[in-house]
């Protein structure tokens, strides 16, 4: 026998305020350094920027105090710091492009998206007072997710950029519906698995000491696998299909505690990856660019050029980086979106990149801790799924840029330039805040 002594829950709102202060300092110092090196530094403007950041942080803090008083204290500061670093980096890349005669306003656009994202997260907290409400929309969420995934294929609405059909144009802006579909699918998986997990976990033949699922219970897994493959085929979006399938397998594992599901999932994924590699030329090109990135003919054909330039940039950064505003991240194509990790690696070095990755680890750890703390099965799955979604997305992007896995187009949450990603990820943070608020809330004493 062992006894578990619970430590009384502290709301941690004061620690949150302290951490928010540090996060704002990081964001403002980053911007100051960028402006200084672009010979653009005006202290008045920097003070205004700092004031805006302080105001935003304070509003979020007060809103959480009011509407989600037991929410996790570390989530928002970690996200705000990432966001601030991202904004500074994108602004810095704007300056670099301007030097080369290319006029871009990514930085300003991204500031607007950030504000919208924060508003969206606060709306989630304000409107969704009980996450269990979402369980009622299990199948609605599933259908919405599928529609979101298929929207880019609608003629007239869909937009093809660089060979990938994952955008739709709304009001002159392009949106990536897959980013939002991701959240809908997590809600669907959580609702589906919480009702069916016992059948999935307990029935089926035992092989080599592991219980494998019955073929008829495999239906949903097979369905998601097929959907993921179809996305990959028709929209040429490797990243999203990998992300969706990964989220589903991870949530299955959390729901059933059966390793066999992970093995089945990995097997299916491996099969799909090999199949796609032999059948489709665009996947094959990615594999070659990954495995033989530094070969002369692969590099000069242009397929691995972006990847290799990113690697050179990071190598140039070394341990401590060239310093914000002092490197040449603009030499990498898409330095502000897909390759922002390489840009950050160049200017902040390994030290800075590790700090950024640790911030992600903290965010994911908080999501997992929330999952452990929640007693409701649906909440557990939801929190674990959302946390895993962020973790897997970061792994796919950073792994792609650092040549651990083949490069696929996904955005780095909170850092990369892109509106849909910013809005969707802030929505995830809103949901996690609500979940953690309910998980950490002391049990009401029965009257």
């Amino acid at each position, binding site marked *: 026998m062992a006894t578990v002594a619970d430590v009384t829950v502290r709301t941690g709102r004061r620690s949150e305020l302290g951490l928010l202060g*540090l996060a704002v300092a990081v964001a403002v110092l980053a911007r100051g350094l960028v402006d200084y090196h672009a010979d653009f530094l005006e202290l008045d403007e920097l003070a205004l920027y700092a004031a805006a950041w302080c105001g935003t942080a304070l509003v979020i803090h007060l809103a959480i105090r009011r509407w989600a008083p037991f929410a996790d204290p*570390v989530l928002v500061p970690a996200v705000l710091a990432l966001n601030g670093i991202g904004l500074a980096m994108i602004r810095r890349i704007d300056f670099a492009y301007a030097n080369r005669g290319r006029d871009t306003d990514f930085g300003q656009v991204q500031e607007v998206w950030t504000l919208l994202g924060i508003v969206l997260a606060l709306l989630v907290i304000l409107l969704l007072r009980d996450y269990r409400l979402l369980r009622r929309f299990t199948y609605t969420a599933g259908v919405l997710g599928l529609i979101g995934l298929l929207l880019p294929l609608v003629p007239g609405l869909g937009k093809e950029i660089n060979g990938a059909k994952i955008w739709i144009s709304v009001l002159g802006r392009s949106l990536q519906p897959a980013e939002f579909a991701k959240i809908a699918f997590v809600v669907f998986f959580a609702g589906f698995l919480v009702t069916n997990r016992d059948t999935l976990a307990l029935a089926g033949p035992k092989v080599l000491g592991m219980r494998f699922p019955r073929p008829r219970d495999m239906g949903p897994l097979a369905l998601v696998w097929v959907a993921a493959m179809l996305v990959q085929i028709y929209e040429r979006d490797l990243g999203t299909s990998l992300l969706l399938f990964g989220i589903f397998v991870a949530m299955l594992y959390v729901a059933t505690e059966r390793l066999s599901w992970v093995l089945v999932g990995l097997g299916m994924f491996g099969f799909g990856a090999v199949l796609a590699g032999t059948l489709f030329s665009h996947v094959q090109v990615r594999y070659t660019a990954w495995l033989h990135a530094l070969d002369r003919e692969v590099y000069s054909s242009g397929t691995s050029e972006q990847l290799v330039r990113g690697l050179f940039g990071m190598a140039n950064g070394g341990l401590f980086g060239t*310093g914000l505003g002092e490197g040449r991240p603009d030499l990498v194509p898409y330095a502000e979106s897909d390759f922002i990790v390489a840009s950050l690696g160049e200017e902040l070095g390994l030290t800075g990149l590790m700090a*950024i990755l640790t*911030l992600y680890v*903290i965010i994911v750890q908080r999501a997992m801790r929330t999952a452990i703390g929640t007693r409701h099965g649906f909440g557990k799955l939801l929190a674990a799924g959302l946390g895993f979604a962020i973790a897997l997305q970061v792994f796919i992007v950073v792994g792609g840029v650092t040549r651990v896995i083949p490069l696929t187009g996904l955005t780095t949450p909170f850092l990369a330039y892109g509106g849909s990603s910013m809005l969707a990820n802030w929505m995830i943070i809103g949901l996690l805040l609500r979940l953690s608020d309910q998980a950490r809330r002391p049990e009401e004493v029965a009257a």
Partner: protein
Amino acid sequence: MSQLSITLLRMGFLVLLWALVLSAIAVLRADLYGTRVTARGRGRESRRDAEARAEKTASPSRAATGIRTGSISTREPSAGHLAVTGGPLKGTTIPLGGAPILVGRASTCTLVIDDDYCSAKHCRIYLEGDRWMVEDLGSTNGTFLGNQKVTDPVPFRTGDVVRIGATALELRG
């Protein structure tokens, strides 16, 4: 600004970044190492327990009675039986292992109750740590622990009675 102060600022940014990361971890410290697990009755006492249990095997063990326990994990069960004390299945007992028990009308459930007031998948009784919990699975007519309607998972202690329609379930040690 001089080159020195620029370098200092550059390094200062990295220091600030890590200060944020480390203080975030410091805030989490209580959470990471928060729950203390203290061993109780380790050593001599538990060995005596084991011996006592070994002596008891003279009485028919659960495996020998031929009733499938549905046990998958080898965890020591903390309660012996789930007894049906009211309703059409009165008198039935289910030996508890570590596996969750699904109660409902559907034939896939562990305990199938033929009752108009019972939903297909009505409730779930499962082991969390070393205590049993009961959770309603969105049933139409509700699950009641004592007089309280079960919504969130609640602890199901030995002697508690769970009511589903006309059926009453009791946890016995």
